[in-house]
């Protein structure tokens, strides 16, 4: 009698390996949600390229950490390298560029190009970790270590609590800085909290998921939400949800259709923007009638 061995379906494999996939999906979900929330500030304050420059700098931080370990014998956790450099870059980008007789764009261009180029140079000297560098830059986060998940979850939870608590102050300072200054709000402190939050979240998420999807979550989520023309609090909520969908959904899409994870998450973020544009097109005639 002949027997046929049927290969289990993708869904069955996914169920069987859930323990393995749970952490990266959870990590992508948290990263997508928190970066989605912060993305509204990034887009409305016209700092999209701050996000690009900071994610690149996080990649350089990881490369330098590997370099220090291999060539200098100094152990530096790559996560620390990513966070320290991304926070430093964020603070540097807060400097008023007019003081240097430069525009904000030129400063961002310098930071983006230098960090990207330096990451490639450092990566060239640490051939054994080249795969990791590739992962940081383009996002190949099939697996996420418990440490990385913990870092993303703790940073995400602390920052979300802080941002929801101080929402009124940070929003006022972000969107009417002069008014907030005159009304006596601690403008510099609130601004620094926002920028450091972006730096920390981009740093920990870039280490776990890669720079490309982190850039997508921290820009495209807000763009998709803003297309819907909702009130400010709902824009934040929608961007948070869309970021989470792009993170977790992108991972599932990559798994079921055998695509790279970072690319899938990034493309799904872009597809969500297109989807929201369609929703808006359908919505407009109804709104006009109302």
């Amino acid at each position, binding site marked *: 009698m002949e027997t046929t061995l049927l290969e289990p379906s993708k869904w069955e494999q996914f169920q069987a390996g859930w323990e393995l996939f749970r952490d990266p999906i959870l990590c992508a979900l948290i990263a997508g949600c928190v970066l989605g929330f912060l993305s509204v500030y990034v887009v409305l304050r016209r700092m999209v390229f701050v996000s690009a420059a900071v994610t690149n700098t996080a990649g350089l931080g990881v490369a330098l950490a590997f370099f220090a370990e291999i060539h200098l014998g100094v152990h530096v956790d790559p996560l620390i390298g990513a966070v320290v450099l991304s926070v430093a870059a964020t603070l540097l980008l807060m400097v008023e560029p007019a003081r240097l007789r430069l525009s904000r764009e030129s400063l961002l261009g310098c930071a983006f190009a230098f960090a990207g180029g330096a990451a490639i140079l450092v990566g060239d000297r640490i051939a054994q970790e080249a795969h990791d560098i590739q992962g940081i830059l383009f996002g190949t986060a099939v697996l996420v270590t418990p440490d990385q998940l913990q870092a993303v979850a703790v940073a995400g939870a602390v920052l979300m609590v802080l941002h929801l608590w101080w929402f009124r102050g940070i929003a006022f300072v972000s*969107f009417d800085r002069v008014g907030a200054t005159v*009304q006596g709000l601690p403008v510099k402190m609130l601004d620094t909290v926002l920028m450091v939050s972006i730096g920390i979240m981009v740093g920990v998420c870039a280490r776990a998921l890669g720079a490309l999807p982190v850039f997508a979550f921290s820009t495209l989520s807000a763009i998709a939400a803003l297309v819907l023309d909702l009130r400010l609090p709902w824009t934040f909520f929608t961007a948070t949800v869309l970021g989470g969908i792009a993170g977790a959904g992108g991972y599932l899409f990559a798994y079921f259709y055998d695509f790279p994870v970072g690319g899938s998450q990034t493309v799904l973020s872009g597809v969500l923007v297109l989807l929201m544009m369609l929703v808006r097109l359908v919505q407009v005639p109804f709104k006009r009638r109302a």
Partner: protein
Amino acid sequence: MAHGDHETELDRGHRAAVPVEPGEPLLKCEQLVIGYGGKDILPPMDLVVRRRQFVAVVGRNGSGKSTWFKTLLGLIPPVSGRITLAGPNIRSAYVPQMSAIDSLLPVHARELTSWGRLSGWNFLRPFPSKADRQKVEAALDTAGARGIAKRPFRDLSGGEKQRALLARVIATEADVVLLDEPTAAMDAVAEKQTMLRLCALAHDRGLGVVVVSHDMSVAAEHADVILFVDREHRCFVMGDARTVFCHPAFRRQYGDDYCHSAPQGPHRGNNPA
């Protein structure tokens, strides 16, 4: 009243108002020298903004108006001298130019008004108190912005935007209000209406109002005190419309026309010139 525009509490109050005398000092500039990087651009200035007083700051582009205004707002430090609020409970508020609120920002007039209730560290309270919410609603009513409260700021007309910004400044319960070109890009009717509302803020609600403006006729018609600044000749003139418009320093820049048409009025400000 413009077509489709509502009469507000400010409009009614101002029409009924009788001429008022300025009250106690709210904001003092003492030997104030303004400039950048330690370099002065105007001589030392003494100015007192009083309750129920409308002060207009005029001058040509690059005359030092913006530097003076930014110094008053605390955005740039004075080269020397002092700016002080006359008491611990005196509060100031700022009305930005309409264009300063980013057109991408999906903020509604009511949300914008509610920002007026934020000051110091009270943002640590995550939700506005019931009293704050009531004050926001009252400010919307006073400024005639109730009907536009739920509309996005970016979709409002120039006059409606100005009403929303006025509602915000009323919600602050500030004593001194500082406005930067409040009638920029407005048509003549909206401009007139806005200036009348600002006069009502000063004369009826007892605020000190300081306005930076390019428009001499607006300053002549509404201001109790006009401050003319001229960086090129390092001078300033302060006083009522006739005092300022007929001063040689002013005529050197603008000619004699304004002097001939200037209304005669009591001098209310201090004039060191």
